[in-house]
């Protein structure tokens, strides 16, 4: 490399130094807690997606193993799935608005947006539980066939994540209510929004692979 060339042609190193904070690539010292926490949680989400990929693989392998029981085409109600999808997408959008409100330190809008996120998320969960209860009432529970076992495991695992997310959401609302937008609480809100958006991404895979492709089989 000749001396005439700049050492850092893309000016990667300047970003953080201008703002007086370490950029997290070894320049200017260790990254801030916010970046380290967010990155660690991002790694957790990716590992969660790897776990879901195993359930998806199991479902894809077992989708035809109906053991004389109902097939995917017979049990899926696509109108219900469309409604669930709309609820979760709108919930993800409201969650994004909540993160903006947190960024602007606006308590009222934060609570309004988080409340909307909760209502839509709970609506999704209600529709899913209704579907599960309907299947179980017909004797088509997870014990009926390998296909239904894989279906309940995959979709139920996503539902369990949503349930945990709803509990976390209420916790964040209570913490902001009681303690305000402290730095540690803002980090938790960041992690929660990551979690909630990631669950919507997993749902995209579920409604495509399980419901739409399954119903067309």
């Amino acid at each position: 490399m000749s001396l005439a060339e700049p050492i850092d042609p893309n000016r990667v190193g300047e970003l953080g130094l201008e703002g007086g904070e370490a950029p997290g690539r070894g320049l200017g010292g260790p990254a801030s807690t916010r970046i380290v926490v967010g990155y660690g949680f991002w790694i957790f989400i990716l590992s969660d997606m790897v776990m879901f990929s195993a359930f998806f693989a199991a479902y894809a392998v077992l989708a035809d193993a109906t053991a004389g029981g109902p097939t995917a085409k017979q049990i899926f109600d696509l109108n219900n799935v469309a409604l669930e999808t709309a609820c979760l997408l709108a919930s993800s959008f409201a969650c994004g608005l909540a993160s903006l409100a947190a960024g602007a330190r606006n308590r009222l809008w934060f609570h309004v947006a988080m409340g909307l996120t909760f209502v839509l998320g709970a609506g999704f969960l209600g529709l899913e539980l209704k579907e599960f209860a309907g299947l179980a009432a017909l004797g088509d529970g997870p014990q009926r066939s390998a296909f239904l076992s894989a279906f309940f495991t995959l979709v139920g695992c996503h539902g369990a994540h949503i349930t945990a997310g709803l509990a976390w959401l209420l916790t964040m609302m209570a913490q902001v209510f009681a303690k305000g937008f402290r730095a540690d609480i803002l980090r938790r809100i960041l992690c929660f929004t990551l979690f909630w958006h990631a669950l919507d991404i997993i749902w995209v895979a579920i409604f495509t692979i399980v419901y739409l492709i399954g119903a067309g089989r």
Partner: protein
Amino acid sequence: MSESHEGGQPHAGDLAPGEERLDGSGVAHGVRGYLIGLALAAGLTAASFYFAGSGLIYGPAIPAALLALAVAQMGVHLVFFLHLTTGPDNTNNVLALAFGILIVTLVIVGSLWIMANLNHNMVPMSRVMQMQR
């Protein structure tokens, strides 16, 4: 850990995953981003549900079309909701995602490949019964 100085400039330096760099225009700019993401995601979802039910696409090609739409929608979610960019402040996040995608692909494609192969090479159950007699 000192918490006090962190609240000052949360958007200097690198971005944590899910964070967006809002330059000046602030909340309005952020809302616009989420609205664009919502519109794109809703459009792709509607297209998925429509193509799955209509005879508009050649039957055997429907799963491939639906998978393509799903991948596109995941991309929309990553860009507009999780604010993943190709900028230098996102290098770590994108590299971690790339590794995650590699593992997910290996698990799913590998499982399907191995199980299809085993299925193909397995002696049919009727023949197993005959051999046991």
